[in-house]
């Protein structure tokens, strides 16, 4: 379970997250929507400790992410993260991209990590691209590679930061399908997204962020059809 309590985040004087309270249960799929600059990405970075926080607490399975004694490298293996920019490692083949972290971080043998990588590439439908370098893959394929790379660490949580925003429209579908597949398999997911269809169909809950505040959170039906907050309604009226 991910527990976020009274979380405040500043960049210098800029107050980016203004007291976020949020729990995500095992198996839940949460989508986060909101305007650009509302702090959605920053929240994900705070959850896996890529950003420091100034106040409050984030706990993952009871472990405080920002406590000094926490081994962040170990904790991060529990949380896969997929970025808007897929960041494939260009000097490694698809298989090596996925096999790297199991071998280096978890100390798996070369053969074991390659086996893990093969399985995850098949999982995301890239079994025919095993020995290909990322430069020869489309954006959608590279994003699926990034998902496979994260899954190879056998994470219990997956954080998606606008995984489809940088993709050409015709490539969005294949990545969303992969994310849907993960949701069906029971993966706990937090997805920052602009894909309202995905948020509505796949999420258990949807959160709307406005200027560093979690304005509203609830089941998709509430957020998309019966908003409690006027701001949510206004935002959705504009994106549609």
């Amino acid at each position, binding site marked *: 379970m991910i527990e976020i309590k009274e979380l405040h985040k500043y960049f210098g004087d800029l107050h980016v997250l203004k007291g976020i309270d949020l729990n995500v249960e095992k198996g839940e799929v949460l989508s986060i929507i909101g305007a650009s600059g509302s702090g959605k990405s920053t929240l994900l970075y705070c959850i896996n400790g890529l950003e420091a926080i100034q106040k409050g607490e984030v706990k993952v399975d009871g472990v405080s992410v920002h406590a000094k004694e926490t081994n962040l*490298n170990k904790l991060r*293996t529990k949380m896969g993260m997929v*970025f808007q920019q897929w*960041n494939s490692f*260009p*000097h490694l083949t698809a298989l090596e991209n996925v096999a790297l*972290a199991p071998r*280096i971080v978890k100390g798996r043998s070369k053969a074991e990590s390659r086996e893990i990588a093969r399985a995850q590439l098949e999982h995301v439908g890239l079994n025919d691209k095993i020995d290909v370098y990322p430069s020869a893959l489309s954006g959608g394929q590279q994003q699926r590679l*990034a998902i496979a790379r994260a899954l190879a*660490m056998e994470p219990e949580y997956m954080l998606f930061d606008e995984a489809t925003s940088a993709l050409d429209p015709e490539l969005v579908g294949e990545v969303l399908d992969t994310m849907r597949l993960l949701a069906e398999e029971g993966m706990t997911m937090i997805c920052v997204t602009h894909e309202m269809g995905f948020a509505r169909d796949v999420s258990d809950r949807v959160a709307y962020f406005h200027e560093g505040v979690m304005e509203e959170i609830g089941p998709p039906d509430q957020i998309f059809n019966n908003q409690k907050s006027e701001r949510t309604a206004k935002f959705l009226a504009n994106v549609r």
Partner: protein
Amino acid sequence: MNEPISFFSGFGPKDLWYLAQAAWQTLLISVLSISAGTVMGIFFGWILSESKVVGSITIGFVLDAFRSVPLIIQLVLFYNLFNVIGLAVSPFTAGVIILGVYTSALVANVARGGIESVGKPMRRAGRSLGLSYFQTMRHVVWPIGLRAVFPSWVGVALGVLKDSALVSVLGHPELLKVARDLITRTQQPLLVLAVAGAFYFALSFPISRYAAHLERKWQS
């Protein structure tokens, strides 16, 4: 074989052998100083890329000095300095050390550029997988960044191979020194220099070909 001997009265096959041995010395000096200089240079470049302020006012300044003072002055200066402070080093050792430090100053700049070309998102992708800072450097940032500047590094390496000729001022029998001695003896400067030049070419050519091959391989 009798007739040409009068024509090549000074320069005989034995001299070719001298030059080959000298070429071997040049290669040795170059390989040692380029290797050591590259390792040090990557280390310095990494420090420069990590801490811009502290790095540039400390080692940045020293490296600038090594980059800007003519190598021949550095060689003579430090060789004599070594002897003054009682470090009895051979011209060969002194040459390798000084050329190595000089190389590291050049490589540091190149390496820093490469390391800095790997942006925050790529580093974060590594860290998000659970890789530590050093693992991210070793397996992600360095391979990507250093390959990006590999062509510049080859340029530095070939430059150092040629600059190794300056070690001749310390009297070590490398290519240029031996060539000069042969010129004095044979009075055939054109021939001797052409042969010495051919040796330099023979040393550089495989390196640049192999480098081109690597670049092509990495591009695919």
